Structures are given as C-alpha cells and as structure tokens.
C-alpha cells in the first residue's frame, strides 16, 4: 500500500515536471513567433516602394543648362524645376506656388537623382520628354501603404487633404506602381526615409566583425591551446583563468570605453572607423572563443593525445595534428557564437563613434562607417513615421545575416567533424 502511494507520488511529480517543461517550451515558442510575426509585419514593407509615372520634359531652359553642357553641369542641373513643370502639366489647375510646393513634396528627391543620372549618361536626352518612375516621398508612401489614413485627424497627419487627393488621382489613373525597393539594400543612410538604405551599416558591420574574428579566432585558439596543453597549473594560471571567465561577463559598453580611451584617444586611431570597431569587438569576442576552444580541447579523449605522443610527436605536433582538427566542431561553434554576438553588439560601437550619419558605404577599414545594429538604433530615434518600417526592415536584414551565419555554423560543424564518418 505504502509502495503504491509512493509510486503514485513519483508519477505525479514526473508529470508535473514534464508539464512545466512543456509550458516553458510553449512560452518560448510563442515569444519567438510573436517576435518574428511582429518584425516581419512591421518591416517587410520596407522592401518595396511606390513610384509614380511622370512624363518629364528635359528642357534646357527649365534645367538652366547652357549649350554643350559638361557632365558636372548635367548632374547639377535643375531637375527639381523640370519635375515641377511635369507635375504642373499633370495637374494644370494647381497655380499657386504654395500648392505647387505641396504637390512637389509628394515626389522624392530620389527622382531628381534618377533624372540627373540618366541625363549625364546620355546627354542626347536634353530637349526630349522622358518617362520616369519617380519614387514618392516618405509621407505619400505611408499613405499608399496605409500607415497614414484619410480618417486620421488632419492636424495629426503630415499630409493635407489636397495632397491626399492628388495621390488618389494618380492611383485612379493607374500611374502608381509598386516596385522592389533595391535602394533599401544598396543605399547608405539618408535623411529622406524613402532613400535610406542599410548598405553602409551592413558593410560596416561585416568589415568590423570580420576584422574582429580575424583577430580573435587565431588569438583565442592559441590562448586556449596554451592554457590547456602547455601552461603549468599554478597560481598565475588559475588567476588568468578566473579573469578570462570574468571577462566574458564584462558589460560590452566597458569595452567600448576601453576602445575609446586606448585606441581613439591614446593611439590616435580614427573615430567611427571599422578598424577600431573590429579591435574592440575582438576583445569582446576573445573570452567566448577561448572558453569554448578550451572546452572543446578538454572534451577530446586522452587517448588521442597519447596516441600521437607515443608515436614520437612533440606536444605541439600532437596539438596541431590530431587534436585541433578533432576539436574543430567545438572551436567553430565558439567562433560563430562570438561572431553572432559581435554582429548584434551596439553599445561599444556607440562609444567609439560608429554612430554617425554615414551616407556612403565604407571602402576601407579607416573610412567612417556605421553598423547594422547602430543603424537600427539611429532610425528608431528618428521622428519620421516612415522610419518605423525602415527600422524593422533593418532588423530583418540583421536577423537574416544571423540566420545565415548559424546555418553556416551548422554546416561547418558537420563538415569538419572527423568523428562523423
């Protein structure tokens, strides 16, 4: 009887434990789904944009161009005026300058850049009428995407009733097109939300993080080998070990402060440069790589090392040849975790100045640059409503990069595991 009661109690406990596990799993899954759905719902629309078809006459006089213009003159001509003419033709009833301005505010300055580019490439277009698909301004785009509604109180929205009418007129005439927003991936930052892109951030992040791994991976693995295989066990190495473990828990902003004080101020390295960002991130990643590499080396069977030593391999030869390749899956995992950590890191980059407005993607490690998570932070701070979807869009790009990295890690783990044959 007593035995039966005990068994029932044990069963009940097991059931309770399993249910608790299931609940926490469901909670975690639910949160993940919420996150993914939320970010995708907000940010996917950043990957397409609305354009209006306009017929613009590139009249030399309107453009205030002289005869035989140079390329520089062609690029700097008054395309804004040409677009205003085209808009006026499209809506002849608009007369007042104030209203014309309001009409032109619906078209993004990106349209002017498009026209300038085309004219500079083909000067024969001057004097001709060209069709352009002009990207609309951020506010018009928000209206077309349903984020600004006519039902919103007029004093709460950035577009007047009249502006909404013009957009509706375009839509009714079938002049509005939806297109993939390549600029979002190809452009640098811009104060016009419809022209802002993640390229400078992605490139800056990849350069800085790539540099960080280039520094931290060899150093970290070498340190792990030294501590695990060569260093004697004494007070000094115990002290080192404790400190390395603590280093992994140091808040990242402290590393940023260190980077600012040591590299920017003391060594005079340029601010905002991916070089400094890379060095700071490498310091942050180092403990992660050391700890996981040591664990990977320690997990190897002792017989592996003994086998090599018994064949007359020196200690270093034993480490380099059978041991490191056998530990590769664990080491690669550590490196990728470090990589992912560094990719998502914002705080230390803020301190070393990788937070500035960067319109052109960097071409070297010394160019001022932004980073993807910093871009998210900057855009989230911006007042324009159109930056909401841009922020979420940048988060999607960041998450995609991380997902890609994790997939690469999973592949590499399998590919380089000598125990899977």
């Amino acid at each position, binding site marked *: 009887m007593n035995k039966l009661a005990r068994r029932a109690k044990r069963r009940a406990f097991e059931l309770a434990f399993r249910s608790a596990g299931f609940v926490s799993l469901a909670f975690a899954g639910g949160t993940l789904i919420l996150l993914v759905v939320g970010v995708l719902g907000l940010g996917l629309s950043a990957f397409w944009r609305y354009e209006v078809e306009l017929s613009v006459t590139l009249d030399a006089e309107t453009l205030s161009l002289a005869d035989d213009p140079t390329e520089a003159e062609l690029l700097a001509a008054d395309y804004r005026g040409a677009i205003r003419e085209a808009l006026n033709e499209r809506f002849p009833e608009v007369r007042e300058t104030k209203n014309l301005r309001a009409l032109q505010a619906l078209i993004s300055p990106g349209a002017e850049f498009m026209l300038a580019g085309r004219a500079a490439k083909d000067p024969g277009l001057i004097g001709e009428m060209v069709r352009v698909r002009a990207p609309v301004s951020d506010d018009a785009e928000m209206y077309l995407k349903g984020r600004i509604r006519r039902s919103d109180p007029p004093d709460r929205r950035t577009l007047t009733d009249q502006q909404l009418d013009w957009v509706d007129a375009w839509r009714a005439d079938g002049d509005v097109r939806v297109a993939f927003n390549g600029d979002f991936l190809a452009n640098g930052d811009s104060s016009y939300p419809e022209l802002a892109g993640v390229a400078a951030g992605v490139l800056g992040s990849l350069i800085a993080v790539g540099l960080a791994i280039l520094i931290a991976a060899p150093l970290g693995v070498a340190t792990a080998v030294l501590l695990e295989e060569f260093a004697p066990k004494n007070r000094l190495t115990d002290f080192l070990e404790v400190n390395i473990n603590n280093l992994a828990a140091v808040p990242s902003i402290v590393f940023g402060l260190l980077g600012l004080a040591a590299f920017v101020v003391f060594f005079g390295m340029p601010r905002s440069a991916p070089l400094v960002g890379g060095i700071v991130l490498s310091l942050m990643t180092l403990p992660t790589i050391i700890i996981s590499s040591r664990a990977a080396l320690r997990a190897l069977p002792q017989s*592996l090392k003994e086998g090599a030593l*018994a*064949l*007359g*391999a020196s200690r270093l030869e034993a480490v380099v040849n*059978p041991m490191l390749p056998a530990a590769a899956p664990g080491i690669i995992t550590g490196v990728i975790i470090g990589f992912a950590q560094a990719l998502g890191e914002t705080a230390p980059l803020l301190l070393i100045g990788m937070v500035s407005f960067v319109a052109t993607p960097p071409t070297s490690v010394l160019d001022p640059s932004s980073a993807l998570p910093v871009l998210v932070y900057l855009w989230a701070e911006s007042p324009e409503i159109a930056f909401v979807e841009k922020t979420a869009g940048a988060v999607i790009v960041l998450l995609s990069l991380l997902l890609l990295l994790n997939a690469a890690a999973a592949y590499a783990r399998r590919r380089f595991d000598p125990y899977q044959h």
Partner: protein
Amino acid sequence: MTDRPLFRCDTLSCFYGDKEAIKSVTMEIADKQVTAFMGPSGCGKSTVLRALNRMHETAPRARVEGSVFFNGADLYAPDVDPVDVRADIGMVFQKPNPFPKSIFDNIAFGPRIHGLASSRSELEGRVESALRRVGLWEEVCDRLKESALGLSGGQQQRLVIARAISTEPKALLLDEPCSALDPKATETVEALIRELRDLFGVVIVTHSLAQARRIADDMVFFYFGEMIEQGSPEAILENPTDDRVRGYLAGRTG
C-alpha cells in the same frame, strides 16, 4: 640471458605526485622475445611499461627516479629527448585509439612527422608494408581514404599496431591490447604479436594467464609496486616461488 638485454631497469621508481607507484624495480628484458607483465590490478604493470618509453612523465605531476637503459643507453639521461625515445619504442594502448582520420593518414602519421618518406610513393609503400605486416592490407586496401573509425575493434587495434611499427621501432610496448577485443580478434592479434617478436622485442601487459601462456617467452610478476618474480611462464605458472604469486594464481588476490 645471453645477449645484451633490450631494456635494463636499474632501481627504477615511478611517482604520481608523492605516491610511489613503482618501488625500485631492477630487471632486464630480452630482445626479440615477448615479455609479459602480470600482476593484480593497480600493481603498477602499466606504469612500468609507460616508463620504458617515457610516456609516464606525460601524466600530471608524474616523475621517475633511477634509470632505464635501452640497448645500453640511458633513456633518462639529461640530453635525451623523449620525442626520439618514443619514435624508437612504439606503444599500443588498451583501447584502440585510431586518430579520427583516414586509414592512410593514420599509418602515415609517424613517417610524416619523422620525415621518413621523401616522396608520396615512398610514403604509400611504407603504409602498404605496415598494413601488410599486420595482415590488414587485404581488408582495407580499397578504402584507405575512409575514416579509420569505421573499422571493427579488432581491425582498429591491428591498425594501431601498424601505425606503431610504420616508423620501424626497435621495441613495441603493448598495454593490455586485447582486453577490449572479442576472442576472434584476440586470436588474430596474438598471432600477430608472435610474428612481431622476430622483428623486435615486445613487452605486453596482460591480465590473462592463458594469454601469457600462449604468447610470452618471459614473464615479470608485479605486486603493489614491486617486482617480485621473473622467469619463463611455465616456471612461474606451474611452480611459483613467491607466496604472493601463488595467491594470485589461485585467485585469492587481485
């Protein structure tokens, strides 16, 4: 013994930290013979074996006192590099420990680090002859590029022996090489050990009286860190002089 001994241990003591695992052992081991180390578990057989090729000192806080002469030269002289010693004296462990590499790369490991082959074809020749020596060539010649971990336990142990002899050692130490193998594989490995005796001296640690009787020419009996008897297997097994050996053989200790 008529010839110069292969190994001569002179008051050899082995320590793990402060613990003296082997107490002042003095003995000789003959060349081109199979010498079996026997004794109860934990008596120090493996420790002595590992002292013979300076593997003992790779354990943490391990050290050795006294000397071991190998073909007349002191292995523990200050100018001797343990790496050279281990290249000359091969060792095989209880559990087969092939590297997680291809069969070819396992055998080629020793020749590669010691620079024994100057060309690819020479290396291939060495790999083939080592595999033929242990009778594994026919079984694996068409899958040299495959992982050695795919072989059976007995094949792995023969592979590891082939790996040890690929550097042409002058002695081979075997630490209970058959304890993880089934009877069939044990038989194959034992036959191999008997053949290898023609090439160099073999020292084997074993727990099996039957195995010692089958393959050993000479036998050393250890008991709690001391060497207490040495002689032919027949002499020791049929007519032990020491009470402790008699007790062990009768199953009263160990």
